[in-house]
């Protein structure tokens, strides 16, 4: 108890009204360990550690916490300790009851015990008690969530075996985010990737998906579900073959009557992407080899750039660098006359004090919203569309609507710790 009391300090989270949950770590990187004396006798040690790595990652994907498996530090530096036991176990006063009924318990400061009399199985085993599901539930307790008696919640006290695959659903995400806040951060680029697919009837259809890239990893964002794809982020090289490992500065899709080219930009170079083969061109059908210098492919455009976006209305690629904008005409292959011009004059603010000024992170035309967004830090500005200006004629062309927070429109784009990126 003494240790407990000295370890606990209490600070009421400022400006937050009371929500679900009662205690929370104020540290964002937490260390965990499967205790050596507490290995299960039913699964291999590697299986157990894999399941726990996945379970921690699933929480990391929906809140700003990151988890590291720490098998080396002194135990008191490990925040969350997991172990298996039967009956009287691990110095715990709560005795397990054998096979059936109670299968695990946990405490908010970080101890999780599993009853090894239960028949724990790996993910997708389809029988027994899924160790992954139980682990995600118990970690929820450690992070501060109580039991939530809501069908579909991972924090329900009883185990429901018939749910084959489970994920942290919307309400549970809000519950944990009520304790730790939403995920915020800057992005290197955001884009809708359009590709042609052939249906089973042989018809060609055009599909698109939204991607957020940050350094060497990316998320597919499912707009209709208001969340990222389950299991994202993944590393860049696993999904975008041939791109620089450290990420890109910009994505441009030149899509016009005469051209359908996808380009990625990084530093002084750019690549053309083969959407059919899902990898970068080494040599494109016109015989051009990549990567190429930006100065060669887009004369008059400086590098590195901050970001870029293709505007189908005027056929220009708008390159952004610092406080300047360089519209590059794809047809005439040169920067438009009278440019570069300041970002503020090309994209004027509605409120003089509400403008990104310079060094944008991303310029993103969203087919879901049919709107152009300018990203900088954790904020974004929507460029007033033609329809908007029809409604409000006094709006200047390309004027920026008031800024908003990225995480309030695109939800749960969360980092995971690099050590669990490859799961």
């Amino acid at each position, binding site marked *: 108890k003494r240790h407990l009391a000295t370890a606990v300090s209490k600070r009421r989270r400022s400006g937050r009204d009371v929500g679900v949950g009662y205690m929370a770590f104020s540290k964002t990187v937490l260390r965990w360990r499967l205790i050596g004396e507490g290995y299960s006798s039913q699964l291999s040690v590697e299986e157990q550690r894999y399941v726990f790595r996945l379970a921690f990652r699933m929480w990391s994907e929906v809140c700003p916490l990151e988890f590291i498996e720490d098998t080396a530090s002194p135990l008191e530096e490990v925040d969350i300790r997991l172990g298996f036991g039967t009956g009287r176990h691990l110095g715990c006063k709560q005795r397990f009851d054998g096979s059936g009924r109670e299968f695990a318990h946990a405490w908010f400061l970080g101890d999780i015990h599993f009853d090894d009399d239960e028949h724990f199985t790996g993910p997708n085993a389809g029988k027994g008690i899924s160790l992954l599901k139980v682990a995600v539930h118990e970690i929820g307790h450690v992070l501060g969530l109580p039991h939530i008696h809501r*069908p579909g919640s991972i924090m329900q006290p009883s185990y429901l075996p018939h749910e084959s695959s489970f994920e942290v659903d919307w309400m549970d995400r809000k519950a944990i985010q009520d304790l730790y806040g939403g995920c915020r951060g800057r992005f290197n680029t955001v884009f809708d990737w359009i590709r042609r697919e052939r249906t089973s009837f042989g018809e060609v259809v055009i599909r698109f998906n939204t991607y957020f890239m940050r350094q060497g990893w990316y998320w597919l964002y499912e707009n209709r579900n208001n969340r990222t794809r389950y299991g994202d982020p993944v590393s860049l090289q696993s999904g975008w073959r041939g791109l620089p490992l450290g990420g890109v500065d910009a994505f441009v899709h030149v899509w016009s009557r005469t051209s359908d080219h996808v380009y990625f930009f990084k530093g002084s170079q750019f690549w053309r992407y083969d959407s059919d083969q899902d990898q970068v061109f080494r040599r494109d059908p016109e015989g051009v080899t990549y990567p190429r210098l930006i100065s060669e492919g887009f004369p008059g455009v400086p590098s590195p750039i901050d970001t870029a976006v293709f505007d189908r209305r005027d056929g220009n690629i708008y390159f952004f660098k610092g406080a300047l904008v360089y519209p590059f005409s794809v047809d005439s292959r040169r920067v438009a006359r009278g440019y570069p011009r300041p970002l503020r004059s090309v994209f004027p603010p509605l409120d003089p004090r509400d403008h990104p000024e310079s060094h944008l992170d991303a310029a993103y035309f969203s087919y879901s919203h049919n709107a152009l967004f300018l990203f900088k830090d954790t904020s974004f500005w929507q460029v007033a569309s033609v329809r908007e200006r029809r409604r409000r004629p006094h709006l200047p062309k390309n004027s920026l609507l008031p800024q908003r927070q990225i995480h309030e429109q695109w939800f749960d784009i969360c980092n995971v710790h690099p050590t669990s990126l490859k799961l």
Partner: protein
Amino acid sequence: ERLFHQRDHSDLQSLNQHQAQPITDPHTAELFLSKYGFLKPVNWEEFLHEEPDEPDFSFLEFSELNIEEGFATPRSRDANLQNDQKLHDPQFITALRDFQRLSGLPVTGVFDEATKKAMNQPRCGVPDIEAEIADPSPNNTTDKNMDQTSSEVTETGRNPAVRRR
């Protein structure tokens, strides 16, 4: 080694055949309701790492446990009588109703089959209703110069879901 016949060990036989005692009568139901906080909120945080108040015979494990829990002894007459009285005990009925409500069962206050089945579901050992955690105000347990351990925590408020009416 635990006995198995399937290559993937999916039919692993449990070594000890130690089964949790099922909930079969009002007495065991009352233990269940008490354990998970339906009779009285449980101060769950007190349960971690308490020194056992009786000698630690864990190496004996199973046989000792059976005896200690006492379920195996033949039921005495007054136990039956007690069970009947429990069924009419207002506190027991209220706790049962709370459990039925949280479990999405018909709220009858009657210890029926559906309730029995729900109580016997595999479940987490953390109580459903916890007592409010004592508020160690900063000035008597922690002072500003204390070294923060790696597990700093903040309280964000009480969980309304566990508040008892």
